[in-house]
């Protein structure tokens, strides 16, 4: 069941009531969480439950055995088992096909052996969570959890089970071992963050996705203008889809008294490549840093070794996202960008450093926007590397010009007073909406989307810019007058309810 479905709403409301009715009974609450997690996961396909259970039992058992004898053996065994599951379900056919092609290039013709296998939803997330737990126990930074229910709940915690954040045992297990006290402020924050996440997913990501899909389905060879629109909107789609999911996950968990990590910290305002990776999918990149990059030597072993480590991490990150050369190319591209930025000593910002409205910061943000959009073309929008190159070669200039126009406009606007800024913004939005409404052109875009989407996108980035020092855009909303708060809530709710009634999965479910 999807977060943005009536079924999930009914499920969560019932669960919320039962959960807090058991407020003073920790064990019963954890059992309820465990049952809810398995119901939630099994709703997609009950056959996937066996894999989740298997991962849970092996990780639980090997962690305890690690403390008794042969810690390295048991840890390695658990890692191997989890990676084997991941390789089998996600990468078997990819490797088989490519091995067959490689051997064929040397004259050894063998038939590739592929298997018909469903990709279990969320497998990449919970297996990485299990591996991190194993390694942390081995490193003695975390004591093995002896209560099987607690551990199983940690792996199957339903708000973050399908698409992260990839939580560490040290962050979640202690929370599961403490009685959750009702925290009104935390629950309100959670509700607000859930609403914000739904707005990003339903009102923006899904609408962007509709346009991108139609651009590629309406024409076998879209022109440069339409490709540019597709590239930009796809980047917005994937950001809003994934970060929206994480907002919802955090919000749902907060309403249950559990705090999840921030997985996105306004990556649209990144100023450098390193800054981007401190803001985008933070849980995955910190996982790769702690369990791959640092064990390989990190940045302590000379510049060439560091460059190699960076390439390895980003290539693996690309592969993690999917079994295709597009994802590998995406990872390699980002690795190369990171190596280059280190080599030319691009300024490094602390993770919590917020961008300013200076022209320089704005220019850096727009440049990073261009880089991100171009790399996202590799990610999924294209159908193979040739197609990706076709799109990039046709859009690199138009996207750059768009970013430059955005930089010029925002820099000029930031020099004006707030009221003038607001008036100009409203005029600009009206103009954008008018162009969209009357410029339906070759792509059939429902009027709803043509009217609402530009407004929603501008509102999104304006709100996130305003809240860029907070964990999510609406965190400081309680400080506003009641009327302003209610207006925001109702506008977001109406935007969610009036968005195109199509059922669309979260993109990162496939990982």
């Amino acid at each position, binding site marked *: 069941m999807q977060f943005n479905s*009536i079924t999930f709403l009914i499920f969560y409301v019932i669960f919320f009531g039962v959960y*807090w009715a058991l*407020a003073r009974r920790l064990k019963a609450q954890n059992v309820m969480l465990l049952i809810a997690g398995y119901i939630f996961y099994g709703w997609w396909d009950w056959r996937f439950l066996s894999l989740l259970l298997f991962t849970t039992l092996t990780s639980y058992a090997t962690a305890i055995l690690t403390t008794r004898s042969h810690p390295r053996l048991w840890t390695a065994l658990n890692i191997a088992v989890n990676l084997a599951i991941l390789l089998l379900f996600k990468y078997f056919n990819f490797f088989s096909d490519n091995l067959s092609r490689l051997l064929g290039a040397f004259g050894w013709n063998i038939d590739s052996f592929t298997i018909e296998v469903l990709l279990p939803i969320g497998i990449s997330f919970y297996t990485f969570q299990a591996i991190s737990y194993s390694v942390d126990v081995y490193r003695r930074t975390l004591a093995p959890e002896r209560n099987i229910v607690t551990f199983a709940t940690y792996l199957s915690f339903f708000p973050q089970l399908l698409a992260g954040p990839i939580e560490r045992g040290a962050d979640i297990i202690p929370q599961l071992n403490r009685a959750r*006290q*009702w925290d*009104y402020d935390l*629950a*309100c924050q959670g*509700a607000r963050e859930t609403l914000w996440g739904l707005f990003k997913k339903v009102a923006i990501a899904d609408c962007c996705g509709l346009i991108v899909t139609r651009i590629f389905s309406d024409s076998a060879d879209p022109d440069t203008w339409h490709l540019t629109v597709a590239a930009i909107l796809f980047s917005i789609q994937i950001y809003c889809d994934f970060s929206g999911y994480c907002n919802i996950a955090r919000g749902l968990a907060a309403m249950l008294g559990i705090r999840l990590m921030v997985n996105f910290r306004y990556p649209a305002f990144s100023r450098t490549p390193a800054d981007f990776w401190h803001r985008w999918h933070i849980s995955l990149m910190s996982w790769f840093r702690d369990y791959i990059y640092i064990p390989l030597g990190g940045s302590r072993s000379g510049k060439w070794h560091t460059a190699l480590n960076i390439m390895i991490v980003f290539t693996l990150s690309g592969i993690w996202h999917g079994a295709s050369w597009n994802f590998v190319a995406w990872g390699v591209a980002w690795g190369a960008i990171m190596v280059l930025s280190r080599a030319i000593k691009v300024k490094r910002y602390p993770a919590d450093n917020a961008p300013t409205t200076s022209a320089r910061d704005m220019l850096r943000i727009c440049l990073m926007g261009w880089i991100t959009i171009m790399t996202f073309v590799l990610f999924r929008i294209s159908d193979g590397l040739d197609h990706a190159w076709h799109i990039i070669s046709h859009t690199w200039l138009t996207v750059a010009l768009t970013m430059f126009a955005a930089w010029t406009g925002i820099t000029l606007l930031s020099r004006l007073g707030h009221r003038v800024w607001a008036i100009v913004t409203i005029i600009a939005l009206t103009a954008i909406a008018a162009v969209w409404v009357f410029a*339906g052109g070759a792509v*059939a*875009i*429902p*009027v*709803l989307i043509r*009217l*609402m989407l530009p407004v929603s996108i501008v509102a999104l980035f304006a709100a996130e810019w305003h809240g860029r020092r907070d964990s999510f855009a609406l965190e400081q909303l309680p400080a506003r007058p009641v009327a302003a708060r*209610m207006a925001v*809530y*109702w506008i977001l*709710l*109406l935007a969610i*309810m*009036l968005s*195109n*009634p199509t059922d669309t999965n979260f993109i990162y479910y496939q990982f």
Partner: protein
Amino acid sequence: MNNRPGILHFVTRTLLIVLPPVALIVGLYLLVDPYHVVRGEAIESFDVDPYNTPRLYTNKGLISLKAIERRIAEGDTPDSYIFGSSISCYYDVDYWNRYINSPTTPIHFDSAHEGAASMLLKLKYLRDRGIPLRHALIVLDPEAISHPLSGDNIVSLDPPAVAGPGTLPRWHYSYLRTSTSPDFLISYLPYLCNGHYNRNGRQNVFEVQPMHYDVYRNEESIPLWDSIIRRRPEIFYTAHRLPAHRQFHCSDTARVDTRREQYYRAIAGELSGTDYHVVVSPTIGLDTLSSRDRRLLADIFGHDRFHDYSVSMAHIALADTNWYDRRHYRAPAARMIIDSIYTGRQ
């Protein structure tokens, strides 16, 4: 410390925030009820003069059901039915009755985008209500066989009376979302005010065909288009272009998968004791069934009751005047098919 007031306070406040926009949307739906599914006047909205009153793209399955219920209420329960998707719409029930000689006028029991599961539900509906089913004609084509098993949007969803009361929430939720979407309202509100509607790009909220509807037979016809096609076909087909190149697409792809096979076997079971025929009509693109599908369906329904005309009556596909559009053939083509079923003449 007593936590309960905190939780209740939170729930109350959340409801107070969420309820007003939800009430607005639901109120709009109940008040406007453009598809007449709340107040149950669907058939009255469908049975209108097409030249003066635009007709919404509505759920034909619901209209079919209402038409049958009306006949039953009038004491004229039909015992002969034509099932199928919209490709069965232009089959003339009176012409069919020349062969089956039913004492009551046959009726259509069709749905948009009809699938096998949907068709089975209709048969079960008739059986559960003790409605006699003496004659049945099931109209398929290679494309219709590949339809989803049951409908998934407001035009093709099975009405709760057919699909079961458990589907009522989904039914109304689908109509609620559609009726309150701005894309719908942008077309519909001008129509409410002055009788004119916006086409709204490709969002076809209103039917484009000037269709006549015979509620007694639940039968559709387009006399205006028929007249133009008879007198000036070149004018009609300039405005309604058909595919130019037609050649056989002999398919090895199995359209009848395991689940469809199960549903077709269940349909055959429901039709036990009924004089029925299942026809696979030609498509304008000359799609054909695979030999595996042909054998399977003949085995399920019986060789004397299953008629695959996707190849043997391909001449229907080659004459433009047999078609309104790339999916729907006209009544003369349907009559040729009926003749072939009952006389063997092709």
